[in-house]
């Protein structure tokens, strides 16, 4: 077994464990922390169904962002939905036989990678060029964009410049899933791509990428506007009434 295969196999086990455990504990924390007061940003839906629709529009269309800034919206949407398609396309490395819908989106996945990269560059340009956004950016904000762009870039390189043995890559990942390790091709671009992905997985639960679970727990978006109809009382607030 080549040394690098062992390193990468271990790396992905560790990264997956950290991602899953880290995210689970954050989600648990958010779910367990009470929201003692009704604070939906109004006008807000007055029914649960309405809230589900509001969240749906936020997730799928980035509704608030659309109202707020068309440039961030267009770049952000290209990046996220590009990335979403690219990720979906990657399922072919984990499924056998490949699911039909994953097969069907393969051609779109290529455009998606370009959309994702263009979106990232647009966001990065704003971060550098707009004085307000530059002011609020820490080094980590730039590095996050660099990381994602590098992942997309190395991925695209393998599509267009230095092809790699994707059958072997698939065998490696399928092997990881059943604890039967297969050799990983030793192409530098692939190795960089995978290392960066592992880094992304590791930092996910300890960085601003927590916005992904966070958006579901935001009380200003997910609460029903019915404080007069239904009394809302958290456990610690109920203690005060004793």
């Amino acid at each position, binding site marked *: 077994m080549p040394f690098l295969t062992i390193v990468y196999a271990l790396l992905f086990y560790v990264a997956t464990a950290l991602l899953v455990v880290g995210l689970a504990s954050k989600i648990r924390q958010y779910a367990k922390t009470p929201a003692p007061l009704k604070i939906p940003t109004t006008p807000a839906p007055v029914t649960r169904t309405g809230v589900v629709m509001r969240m749906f529009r936020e997730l799928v269309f980035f509704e608030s962002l659309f109202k707020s800034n068309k440039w961030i919206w267009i770049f952000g949407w290209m990046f996220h939905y590009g990335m979403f398609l690219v990720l979906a396309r990657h399922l072919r490395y984990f499924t056998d036989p490949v699911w039909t819908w994953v097969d069907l989106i393969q051609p779109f996945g290529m455009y998606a990678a370009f959309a994702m990269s263009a979106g990232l560059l647009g966001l990065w340009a704003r971060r550098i060029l707009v004085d307000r956004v530059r002011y*609020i950016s820490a080094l980590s904000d730039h590095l996050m964009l660099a990381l994602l762009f590098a992942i997309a870039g190395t991925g695209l390189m393998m599509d267009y410049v230095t092809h790699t043995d994707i059958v072997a890559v698939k065998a490696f990942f399928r092997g990881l899933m059943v604890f039967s390790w297969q050799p990983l091709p030793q192409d530098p671009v692939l190795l960089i791509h995978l290392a960066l992905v592992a880094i992304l997985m590791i930092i996910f639960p300890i960085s601003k990428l927590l916005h992904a679970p966070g958006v579901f727990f935001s009380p200003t978006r997910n609460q029903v506007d019915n404080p007069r109809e239904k009394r809302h009382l958290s456990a610690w607030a109920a203690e005060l009434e004793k």
Partner: protein
Amino acid sequence: MADFEVPELKEYPVIPHIQEGTMAHSKPFVAKEQFQEPLGFPGELVDNWQQVAYDKMEELTGKYRSLAVFLDSCVKCGACTDKCHYYLGTSDPKNMPVARQDLFRKVYRRKFTFAGKYFPKLVGAVDLTKDVLDDWYSYFHQCSQCRRCSVFCPYGIDTAEISMAAREVMDSIGVGQKYCNEIIAKVYKIGNNLGLPQPALVDTLEGLEEDIEDDTGVKVRLPVDEKGADILVVTPSADFFAEPHVDGLMGYAKVFHEAGVSWTLSSHASEAANFGMFIGSYENMRKVSLRIREAALDLGVKRIIFGECGHAWRVAYSFLNTLAGPFDFLDPKYPVPMHIMEFTYDLIQRGALTLDKSANDDMVLTYHDSCNVARASRMGPKPGGQFILPREVIKASCNHFYDMPQDTIHEATYCCGGGGGLLTDDLMELRVKGALPRMEALKYVVEKHGVTHMAAICAICKSQFAKVMPYYGFQMDSIVSVHQLVSNAIVLGNKQ
């Protein structure tokens, strides 16, 4: 007139470039011991203040999901950076909502996150030093908790929540703000923000009854502490004497008179505003709210109606049931509490009021949506009723009404610049500059439609505008109460 530069009203709103530190000097007076202690806060900076502050931060992130989620979730996308009226009016980058949050977030990161503990430089994490605390005191008192940023953030991050938490942390280490804390102490002692005792209140109301009778020849009552009345009316204490608030109060009285209902004010709960919210203190907010419950029980009323006040309506609409409920002893036919606008609107819909619109023909009106009514409450059964009801009441009371530009009204409304516990003379520069976006929008309709007056339904908005409009060349009496318009137009004695 001012020892600072009043911003110029531009033809089209422009987003300013950042100018660091322009408002670093702006700080409200610090509360002395006598205003801290009645609220349960230490009288001066405690010795181990840093540790106490960290402990409080940990406690609050465990008690408020909003805080926990908002501190982790911001991606620094920048969508909120041009949404705060204080940034637009001052160009100080720390008045950009995300930068304001970051003052808190960078300490949170340092103490409570992996990245901040081990790589502070990378994520911009810092300890809570004296300098950082000074920045907190300055900039968390440059947020009117208006929630405009929350509307535009992709995750609904509400800087108001963070400002409230920061103020609570500061209170807990003995660094409170005089204006808010003095007022809350007054409510505990006397029952209202102004410290107006019961006899003075009775006197004032008698005076108003006489004014109405002189003016209209009709005896309209303004009862206080009347046991057995059907409706308890809770209104901001500014309604008892300040202009144009008091004209609004006379308006409510005439509406109740025409509706033929029995109502009363209470000297125990003679204040609708709840400054406990401004300082983020659940306990104090609850204590102030309970006075309303006590008054309702004591007077044996069947309903509670709130007068024109913005942040008060937020606490009343969104929190009262939580803080001081359940209100199962009141008549279940009516929402608890109701807004005076809901009451008047309903009468108008049923044709139960006779309104002579021409009584307001000397005015061309526009309407200022108060921030906390717009973005933190509702009126009527449907979402957005808080925009419709006041406008319908205005339109039923006057002939000339024009809205300001779309991106400055409804949920996108700009704060008056004086909300959230900032309506104090020691913050005058901030208040004037923060009013800029609203003044620009007003100028637009003044020039386009000849608007002469702006109506509002918030005590803070009314006081703030009366004070800052002259800086921008508008008359101080061009701000009016919505129920003042009703009061002018209502034809008394018509529907007996």
